[in-house]
């Protein structure tokens, strides 16, 4: 075998030549892919290899007035196990320790988990459920379990996180706290406060991050920072007082259960501010248990019955069509108006208008109103309209019921409509509207709008503060108010509500027992009622107003407003003034003192400065002005109530003793 350099080189050139040709072939193929097939393959580039991922913002919390958490969003986790991912060696090594850890966590036996995990691996289950709906601290436990601690790529740990809205107080006021829910078709249900303030405050804005696809179902963020940082939702501070809410909820629940009623609602409102301190709405399930079903207080407009008598009588009193002492003949408990009979539970005979109210005489009220307004029902309806009773309150929560008060010309209007209105039939208003009116009476005629929200905050920064909103500065004269208050107190002292009377605390209110579904044929066999009680407490300086409405109590057990709804009211009133540490009497006193002091200061300033010269008393409370001027020796005549608007002797004029001055309010 004669090998020499020459023939090695010749063969080498041959081999190198082959390689060079091979290289040329590669380049040619490369060029053909790029230029001949190029468009075809460029079109195959997955367009969706970059996507924008939204990073959900944390929804704000809902707090009670005293800062307790009512609704909050918390992360929840589902833990699953990919039984294929771990290597054989690891699976065998960790099977027992993992099963032990799982057994310790759940209480099921070690052998159960061993069997299950082996089965999952044998079945190639890559999605074996280990735990569902667990909290963060439990999730951390799973992450420290043997094998799972190796993470998703070695240990087969699959963690699915989602956010759940939780109500730490449980069922209490759940319906009012509410939720915001988006279904598969994108329809949004917004219930309660959470729903009403969801889009504006609680929701926040989602962040954005651009991710690139790096394989099947795997996406990697392209940049270090988010493109848009998520902005968390604001916190909403409600007016709900957890203690009062708790009292109201349980008082209502107890009564509903006792009377096997269909549903009921209770609302407690702070008189001065209109802040809702408690709201509970309980409906019955098919299993005869109760839960926060719908926001009856807000949405359910119904025939109010006797609680409406306050409005009708006050309208007539304010219009000076009747006085409380006027005698009304209620007869023997049955009277026909325009061919239709109206019944009372007893025959009361000839009684005063006030007494008719106290005993809740339908005939009495119908007679008063019919006599006064039969010829001019618009006059009566106008007063009701001035009191906003025919209009929605426009509160923040969605789904407010539409009130209905018929007018002449309306399809529901007839000659009988007026006497019916007088005792609360033939119209519809919501419980919250009734309460708003009673609250106005308690609040010296100032009608304030019910409020559920105090303020919206981002940590310590106040985003928006919701001030008191006044619907009507003064619904009627002080005289009318005084009369109304006396009557309401008397209802409890000697009227339909005597069973609620207590020596220890005072209250004013009106019972109501309205028939419902009386237009159904079976009513006489199976009568159904709506029992209600609306009022305020304490009577002399009302702090809270409250309404209790219970629908369809079991008639066998009782149906009168005083029996069914009244006790709920009483319980709430009693408990608030005995149990609630939150009730801060000092605070209210301070507010009053400041106001009174200011008035006193003005009073004394004027009193000291003016001895013989007429002062400007406009803007002063009329009673203050009277005292001031009488101390100067003047004789004062007054017209109207409230603050002085006009004085007959102008400011700066010299006055003599016993000179007469007329003040107009």
């Amino acid at each position, binding site marked *: 075998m004669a*090998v020499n350099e020459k*023939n090695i080189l010749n063969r080498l*050139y041959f081999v190198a030549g082959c*390689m060079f040709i091979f290289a040329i*072939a590669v380049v040619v193929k*490369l060029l053909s892919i*790029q230029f001949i097939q190029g468009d075809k393959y460029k079109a195959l580039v997955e367009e969706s290899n970059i996507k924008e991922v939204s990073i959900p913002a944390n929804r704000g919390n809902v707090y009670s007035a005293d800062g307790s958490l009512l609704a909050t969003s918390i992360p929840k986790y589902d833990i699953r196990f990919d039984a294929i991912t771990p290597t054989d060696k690891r699976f065998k090594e960790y099977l027992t320790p993992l099963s032990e850890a799982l057994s310790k966590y759940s209480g099921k036996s070690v052998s159960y988990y061993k069997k299950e995990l082996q089965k999952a691996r044998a079945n190639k289950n890559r999605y074996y459920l280990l735990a569902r709906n667990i909290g963060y601290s439990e999730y951390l436990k799973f992450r420290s379990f043997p094998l799972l601690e190796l993470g998703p790529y070695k240990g087969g740990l699959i963690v699915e996180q989602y956010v759940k809205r939780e109500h730490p107080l449980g069922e209490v006021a759940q319906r009012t706290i509410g939720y915001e829910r988006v279904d598969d078709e994108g329809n949004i249900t917004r219930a309660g406060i959470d729903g009403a303030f969801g889009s504006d405050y609680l929701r926040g804005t989602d962040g954005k991050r651009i991710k690139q696809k790096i*394989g099947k179902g795997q996406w*990697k963020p392209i940049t270090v920072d988010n493109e848009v940082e998520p902005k968390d939702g604001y916190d909403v501070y409600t007016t709900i007082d957890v203690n009062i809410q708790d009292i109201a909820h349980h008082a209502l629940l107890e009564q509903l259960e006792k009377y096997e009623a269909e549903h009921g609602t209770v609302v407690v409102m702070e008189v001065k501010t209109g802040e809702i301190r408690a709201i509970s709405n309980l409906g019955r399930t098919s299993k005869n248990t109760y839960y926060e079903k719908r926001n009856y207080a807000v949405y359910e407009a119904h025939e109010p019955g006797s609680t409406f008598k306050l409005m009708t009588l006050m309208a007539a009193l304010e219009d000076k069509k009747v006085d409380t002492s006027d005698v009304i003949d209620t007869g023997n408990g049955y009277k026909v108006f325009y061919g239709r009979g109206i019944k009372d539970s007893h025959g009361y005979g000839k009684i005063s208008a006030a007494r008719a109210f106290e005993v809740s005489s339908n005939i009495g009220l119908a007679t008063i109103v019919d006599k006064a307004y039969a010829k001019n029902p618009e006059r009566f309806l106008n007063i009701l309209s001035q009191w906003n009773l025919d209009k929605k309150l426009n509160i923040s929560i969605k789904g407010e019921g539409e009130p209905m008060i018929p007018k002449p010309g309306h399809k529901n209007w007839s000659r009988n409509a007026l006497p019916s209105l007088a005792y609360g039939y033939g119209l519809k208003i919501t419980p919250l509207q009734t309460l708003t009116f009673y609250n106005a009476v308690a609040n010296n005629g100032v009608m304030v709008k019910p409020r559920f929200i105090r303020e919206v905050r981002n940590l310590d920064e106040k985003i928006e503060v919701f001030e008191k909103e006044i619907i009507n500065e003064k619904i009627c004269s002080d005289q009318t108010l005084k009369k109304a208050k006396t009557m309401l107190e008397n209802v409890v002292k000697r009227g339909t509500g005597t069973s609620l009377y207590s020596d220890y605390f005072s209250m004013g209110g009106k019972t109501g027992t309205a028939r419902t579904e009386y237009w159904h044929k079976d009513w006489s066999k199976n009568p159904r009622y709506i029992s209600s009680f609306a009022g305020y407490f304490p009577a002399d300086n009302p702090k809270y107003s409250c309404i209790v409405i219970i629908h369809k109590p079991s008639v066998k057990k009782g149906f009168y407003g005083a029996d069914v709804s009244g006790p709920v009211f009483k319980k709430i009133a009693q408990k608030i003034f005995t149990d609630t540490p939150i009730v801060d009497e000092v605070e209210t006193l301070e507010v009053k003192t400041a106001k009174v002091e200011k008035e006193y200061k003005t009073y004394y300033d004027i009193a000291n400065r003016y001895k013989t010269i007429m002062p400007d008393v406009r803007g002063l409370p009329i009673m203050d002005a009277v005292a001031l001027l009488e101390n100067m020796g003047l004789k004062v005549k007054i017209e109207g109530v409230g603050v002085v608007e006009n004085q007959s002797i102008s400011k700066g004029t010299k006055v003599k003793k016993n000179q007469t001055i007329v003040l107009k309010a």
Partner: protein
Amino acid sequence: MQKAILNNIKGDKLIWAIVALLAIFSFLPVYSAASNLAYVGGSGNTFAFLVKHFMHLFLGFAIMYGVHKLPYRYFRGLSMVMMPLVFVLLIVTILQGTTIEGANASRWIRIPFINMSFQTSTLASVVLMVYIARYLSKIKDKTITFKESILPLWIPLFIVLALILPSNFSTTAIIFVMSMMLLFLGGYPLRYLLAMGAAGLVGLTFFILIAKAFPEAMPNRVDTWMSRIENFANGEDTEEDYQIEKAKIAIASGGVVGLGSGKSIQKNFLPQSSSDFIFAIIIEEYGLIGGLFLMVMYLWLLFRIVIVSQKADTIFGKLVVLGVGLPIIFQAMINMAVAVELFPVTGQTLPLISSGGTSIWMTCMAIGIILSVSAKREEIKEKQSQDEGDNPLEILSETI
């Protein structure tokens, strides 16, 4: 400093330069691929991959430097010593081979203490080539019969091939082809070569039949490369087709100038984007220009290997240069051919560019051997130049 390096490194300076250029270039695609690996791996540290690659290259250059300092005549003896060691390593690999995550092939052994995996077949290839070169140079003046060559040549060759075959068909095939090429270059009788080529094919068929008959003996692997070849032939939709398609999409979307460093999209979908399909990713990021640059680099390296071989002072020198040098180029060509679908998917890396320690180190060792041969030539030339003046033609061919 510059002088110190230049004085210390011997051999063909252009080979040094080409290798250095390729090594520097290799950081770009490796770093580009690192972002996904880091993200999926959970560490999130892309820099770690860069450091690791740097360590591989650093060690590679250290090996290259060390080897090129050895007089190449030592390799004759070393290859004799190394052959039995290679056998042992290959057997150990089969017995306790580590499967690298995902890849179902026992090709690696874990080196104790430093905790790195090592692909023994790559070492076996280099040692075998040197061994064959030694054998050919030994018999250069004899007329050899086939019988005489069985024990010293064919037995070791087939032991190596048989030990690699179950886990890595493509490497076995390349080693076989390269051995044949070297034997051809070394003047081994052509008719014997043809006969052995035929015998190799028969042996392979036999092996496949056994593997098919007893699938438990050789799980998965046979199926994998059987299906690879079948699919290359008939074009059914498989994982390989998916890879090839992504590779072609990468090449097409790269265009002439490429998408730019790190901007490859297909690297996300090509599982072996930093090794097997790195050429496609390089074209996607650096365009046709980048691809041609690499091709030119390898062809230039081929040219320098031919030159070194030409100038080598002994037959062993010539053959050993070709034996270890041509496989590098061949492997590079195969890798590029796979990316452009000129060749079925083999799993061969792109020498010096792909990440992966073993491949880099063995390539560096091979280059070290080539440099050692060329260093010897320089020594001789220095002595000669003291005797006679420089031949201008000589200088020209030294410098291109």
